[in-house]
């Protein structure tokens, strides 16, 4: 038996220079990551970004092509999965179908030769409020209950590190919310390090202390959820975590604390400490909810950026807030989230508007600006119909 006592508490995880190549593609490229003990850490990214591979490497289910994995100061790179102080809540739960819920939960305890496995398993089931179903088979439980059993089966072993592979993916929204809160409280209660892999940015933000946004096998940015949201460093993070309005332009002036960027002839001010680059062509951005809509050109004031005039192309009302879509000539599409402080939408489609925002809310990104708006403003259904008709006519003409 590898160990006969529980881990003292969470352990920190260190990935050093991890590369994982599969035949034909590289899933992870030279990844460095340190997760402090006792934290709730989320790896966030789109599918195929390498986050699940990272998790499987930590669990020992895959072998890295290069690099080291250190858990709690011990190099486990060459250690077999069943000897690692790590447990996983699998995306598919992977509950053993031929065992009862209780046997499933006690499985790990029995393998390690722990005393009183049934008692400890019952205790873990009480934690997830499923003790009354202990003698059922997994197939007799609902998806949410199975998920909680999978969680109990992993947590009962008090691993130094708990890995969660999109465990809430199969649940409906309400159950998901409830489980998010439960997970968070269990983490606080047992004090073990959680490594949570998800593509759901909202889930990552509500649960994790620290989020690492992954893209193409590498970490784009790492930090507290608020930090990542308020001050994204790259366009990928700015768009993956919430929505952003991004503008490109040259830096025309620079003071001790701010830079001024020329966005289609309008001067936009960004604080220096919120900008990654201070010279040349830069990309700057601002979150849609930081924008204020004006139906008349607002007076220029220090510390306020104004963009406009633009035209409203779409208004969608969602109860709490209204989302406006505008096109500002030269600056492209601009999204605005406005709280419904008044009664319903303030302006209608086609209205001429200006937007303003506090200069302190803008941010400057690391990316080179896109030469042109990445996507043409093709969300206008009329224009789509017209284009389709032109294409059809062209096609007919060619045939004749």
């Amino acid at each position, binding site marked *: 038996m590898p160990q006969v006592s529980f881990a003292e508490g969470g352990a920190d995880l260190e990935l050093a220079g991890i590369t994982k190549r599969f035949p034909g593609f590289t899933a992870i490229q030279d990844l460095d990551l340190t997760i402090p003990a006792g934290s709730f850490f989320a790896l966030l990214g789109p599918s195929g970004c390498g986050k699940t591979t990272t998790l499987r490497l930590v669990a020992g289910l895959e072998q890295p092509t290069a690099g080291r994995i250190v858990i709690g100061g011990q190099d486990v790179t060459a250690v077999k*999965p*069943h000897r690692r102080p*790590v447990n996983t809540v699998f995306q598919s739960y*992977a509950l053993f*179908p031929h065992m009862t819920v209780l046997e499933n939960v006690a499985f790990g305890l029995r*393998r390690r030769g722990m005393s009183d496995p049934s008692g400890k398993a019952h205790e873990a089931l009480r934690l997830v409020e499923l003790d009354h179903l202990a003698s059922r088979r997994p197939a007799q439980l609902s998806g949410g209950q199975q998920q909680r059993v999978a969680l109990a089966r992993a947590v009962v*072993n008090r691993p130094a590190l708990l890995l969660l592979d999109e465990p809430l993916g199969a649940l409906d929204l309400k159950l998901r919310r409830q489980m998010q809160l439960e997970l968070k409280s269990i983490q606080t209660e047992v004090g073990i390090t959680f490594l949570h892999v998800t593509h759901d940015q909202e889930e990552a933000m509500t649960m994790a202390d620290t989020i690492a946004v992954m893209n193409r096998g590498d970490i784009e940015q790492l930090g507290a959820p608020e930090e990542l949201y308020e001050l994204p460093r790259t366009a990928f993070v700015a768009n993956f975590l919430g929505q952003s309005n991004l503008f490109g332009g040259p830096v025309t002036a620079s003071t001790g604390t701010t830079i001024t960027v020329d966005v289609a002839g309008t001067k936009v001010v960004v604080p220096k400490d919120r900008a990654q680059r201070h010279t040349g062509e830069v990309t700057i951005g601002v979150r849609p909810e930081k924008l204020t809509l004006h139906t008349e050109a607002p007076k220029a004031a220090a510390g306020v950026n104004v963009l406009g005039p633009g035209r409203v192309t779409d208004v969608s009302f969602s109860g709490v807030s209204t989302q406006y879509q505008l096109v500002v000539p030269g600056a492209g599409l601009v999204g605005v989230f406005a709280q419904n402080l008044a009664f319903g939408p303030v302006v209608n489609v086609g209205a001429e508007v200006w937007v303003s925002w506090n200069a302190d809310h803008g941010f400057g990104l690391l990316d080179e600006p896109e030469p042109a708006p990445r996507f043409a403003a093709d969300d206008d259904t009329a224009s789509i119909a017209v284009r389709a008709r032109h294409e059809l006519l062209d096609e007919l003409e060619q045939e004749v």
Partner: protein
Amino acid sequence: MAFAVFGPASGSPAGSTESAPRRRGTIALVLLLPGLAYLALFFLTPLISLLLTSLQAPVEFGDIGQYQTAFRVENYAKVIEDYWPHFLRAFGYAVAATVLALLIGYPLAYFIGVRLRRAPFLQALALTLVIAPFFISFLLRTLAWKQLMADDTPVVQFLKAVAILPPDGHLTGTAFSVIFGLTYNFIPFMTLPIYTTLERLDLRYLEAGSDLYASPATTFLRVTLPLSLPGIVSGTLLTFIPAAGDYINASSSFLGSASTTMIGNVIESNFIDLLNYPAAAALSVLLMGVILIVVGVYVRRSGTEDLV
């Protein structure tokens, strides 16, 4: 469920409650009739005939092979007394062949069903190779083994040279060659059902096992083996039942000799050579009864009742 289509679906629920089940019952009966008739004709009738034959008595002063209807229960006592060693031998050989076929067939099925999963072409090829022997009559294959294991073949000479076999030893006509033949002939019947369960085995369970501190060996014992139990049970049944009644491998014209006679050979010789029909029938009934009991206990013990 399927019969619901024929029911009066459009009729008012209150009026049709009584007639609907009755009509459905009639349709079910009509559909079952061919099967029931077939079973009655080709299973029940021979079975009753067999039971009656087993109780027949010889015709007084009649020819050899002349019997009349009687109720001679002593027939059973007589065959048990005469042939109990052959019964034991048949079950001994069948158990040995089943165990050997399992030991060979399981790893084979595991390899094809789990390891070759990422190579569908190789998997199909390996499966074809498992079934390939069926393309040749098993009589011919068993005869081929007899040729290979005959006294003057290189195989036997080699075994004698390395002193595994004594200088005056034989391979054919021994318990070894009979069990070997049975094992060989039934390996596909063992492998295929196990393959079907292992082929569907979700490998994520194995990952979960290793994640929960189970070594590969423990994961196999606690996860893979229990999950493939249905395949093992059907494989062992498909091997054990025909092997216990087999009369080809143990016959002296194939791999056996007088010292390896199994109960199948006894039934055959009683029926064809000795013309002792009641004895042959009584032995058949006994064999059937014993197999039913053994299989019943086995299936009950292995916890896969839904197979019966």
